[in-house]
């Protein structure tokens, strides 16, 4: 099945939303979550997660901690912070606004 690219600028939104649901997740889990919940429509080029995660660390939207996976491997786990939650709200409302606007334009004859 052909997977669509995610629209530019929405990667942060997707990651934030995923984390608020899942608590603590590492990179693989985040990527899987997005893919599954979007029913395979959205496919994140997995490498591009990591620069985005770094950015979010700098901005203070997430924190990271080393832990161990179920298979006893070392992985870095990310969790949302309070500013991150705020950022999520802001991004969601912006996304809604833009989507509604686009919808209006498309639907108008």
């Amino acid at each position, binding site marked *: 099945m052909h997977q669509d690219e995610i629209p530019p600028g929405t990667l942060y939104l997707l990651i934030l939303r995923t984390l608020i649901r899942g608590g603590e997740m590492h990179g693989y889990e985040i990527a899987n979550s997005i893919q599954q919940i979007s029913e395979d429509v959205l496919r994140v080029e997995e*490498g591009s997660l990591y620069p985005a995660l770094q950015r979010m660390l700098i901005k203070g939207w997430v924190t990271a901690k080393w832990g161990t996976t179920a298979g006893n491997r070392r992985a870095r786990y990310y969790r949302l912070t309070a500013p991150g939650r705020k950022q999520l709200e802001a991004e969601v409302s912006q996304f809604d606004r833009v989507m509604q606007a686009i919808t209006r334009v498309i639907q108008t004859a």
Partner: protein
Amino acid sequence: MLFRRSQFDRDLEEEMRLHRELRKQEQIERGLSPKEAHYAVQKRFGNDLVLREESRDMWGWNWLEDLVQDIRYGARMLKKNPGFTVVAVLTLALGIGANTAIFSVVNSVLLRPLPFQDPERLVDLRETEVAPGDYPLSGPDYLDWQAQNHTLEAVSLYFWRQIMSASGAGEPEPAGVVPTQANFFDVIGVRPLLGRGFAPGEDAAGKNHVAVLSYGFWQRRFGGNPQAIGKAIELNDEAYTVVGVMPRWFNFPWAPDLWTPLDMSPKNLGQRGDHSWNGVGRMRPGVRLAQARAELLTISKRLEKEYPDSNNNVHAVLIPLQETLVGDFRTPLLILLGAVTLVLLVACANVANLLLARATGRQREVALRASLGASRWRLLRQLLTESVLLALTGAALGTLGAWGCVRLLATAKTVSLPRVHPIGLDGFVLVFTVSVGILAGVLFGLAPALQVSALNLSEQLKTAAQVVLSPTRRGRLLRDALVVGQIAVTLALLVGAGLLLRSFARLRSADLGIHPHNLLTMTISLPDAKYPTLEARRQFFDQLVDRASHTPGVEAAAVSSEIPLEGGSNGYLSVDGETDPNLSNQLVGWNYITPDYFRAFGIPVLEGHAFTAEDLNRTEATASRLHDLYMAAQGSAPKIPPDLELVCVISQTTARTFWRNQDPIGRSFHWDNMRVIVVGVVSDVKEYGVRAKMMPQAYFPFTLVLSYGGYGRLTIKTRVLPTSVLGEIRRHVRGLDSGLAMFRARTMGEVIADHTQDAGVQASLLGAFAALALLLAVVGLYGVMSYLVTQRTREFGIRVALGAQQASVLVLILKQGLKLSLIGVGLGVAAAMGLTHVMSTLLYGVRPTDPPTFIAVATILTVVALAACWIPAWRATKVDPMVALRYE
């Protein structure tokens, strides 16, 4: 982040590895083979290294790390090519170092504000007179300004720098003394290092025998002893008490050794028409110069109405003090700065050409890096970093050289620069140097970097390493353009230097109206204490002239108050019986002379005669009577009886100005209420300076000036070498008065040199810079020509193989070189024509577009350029066709 980069890298790598493995596992579970799974995951992930770098980039420290990496890489590259690096660094050191040196002078002299408190409020006070220009103040005018103005917070009066004999704490030595009003140091805004300045009231007769020492004098005479305060010192045999010492940097005005208080009594300050004083003022905070000027003009006009005889056309002039002290140096210093900037451009062009030559060799390396993923911007940045590194290394070396040169300049006696601030390199100059280095690096590095990084990857990776890749057409054009530019700039600089050199020669040989050879001159100053009367002084000087004239080897001896080039006194005369306002109250130059003055200086008497014995007798009688009258009047203007007469000799200009179509002999004019009869006319002499406009001149018998003080300049005309009679003359002086010092014994040649040395220094400096530019341009031209020959070796080989004469190859190359040179010379001439107007104030007797200079410089430069092309051309003829044809 900066320092734990490798840790960061390892962590990220581990994180992404786990992700990939988990994904691979998932794909295998889905049914792919391990190999297929591996590739699928690789595809999904993307370039690992790039992702890691991107992640790291997010942190924003990258630029610094990149910079460090670029610098290290650049340094390695430069070390690999020591020949190139050394040449480039030396070239840049010369160019940047020269800029640093000149800029440090510009900084110290022009840019830094005066070291006084709130220096922008300080103004120099002067007055206008009927003659154009501005002049010293008259005492009563100054007092009226002081009393009546509201825009100046305070004003202070000071006299000229006088040479006095200082003794009492060691051997007698001549010392420069400036008498000032008591508030002088407060008005200027400077605190003494030790002790105090002058107290109010100390500037009155009887109270003013105190002195403030300069730092240098304190060190010299008192060994820097803090106990110097309260000690006594003798000036011209009068005792003074030391009350203070000034800081090391303070030397206003005229770098004196001591300051003493004036006698501010009206008697000492003189008449209203007597302009002998200097003044400095401090404007109130918030007052603008225009306001202060307007107010003082109003006061001046009021005084003009009140005292029409003395104050006609006399108005106050206010000039910012900084302007007075450094204004004269602005033009020459800025011209030198411009010249040295041009030299730097020439140097940069050379280094740019060197880089372009190397560019072709570096293209493989650059192509390799590009294939590994470096963006064009990244490559450009790295190449520019290398250039800037080169430039900064050159700047560092150049700064060392500049430091040495500036030290030399600052201590050189022959260079006259305002010493308000010590001249040297300070923080600001270093910042300037670094900025210039960075700019230069970008400037000369940009074009080569752009060229190198313009890539055609596959082609460049394919060609074998030994091939000298032919430069693009744009590259060739650029190199030629750079050389043409260098030659043009060099021509402009050489023309400038040539003009200054010619001016200097003209100045040195200018006709002063005298015979300047075999003349010796010195200053004699008689202390008032030892020679209190007119008679005593007259006797001394009469005897001195007599003994000097009879010394073997001496043709004539005279004493005068001024000598040519060092005049300064002037006075007003009103022609008798003239109603034309232009001929009354005119400013005329003044000189008091003994009769042999004209003979000593070789000034021809055109009409009438110099002073006869009878003239002198009458003058002596008049002088005595005048002296008595002034003593009796005690400061106010004495009543001059109508029968007092004087005689004088005038200059040609005076005769032409005042008695144009008449015989001036026997005519009279009035000076200070006295009738003066003209007995002779002499030819014009440049009394005020070589460049100064010729002013009307009048000569009076020397006795007249002795009532003001025993000061005169002894001048001797010798038959033999002037310095050989110096010993005898000294003996005569000692014989008349053993304690007397003679100051500044110089030959007339030395006097002329003193007055023209500025022009000499300017010409030398500009000449040095032009020579430097010439050297660099020649090297540049040589380099380009050599490169051209190397490029076309194969072609020349073919030509020779086909039967061309060696000479024709030579001519071919010379023609190419000549073409470049001529274009450069042409452009340079055009540029110079426009630019030399800037220096017209520095020129004397030479026009800015002086054809002989232009022609000479253009010719010399063309010949030198051809010579530079000769060796590469000659080498081209030696090309063995077999070798050349095999040369791939």
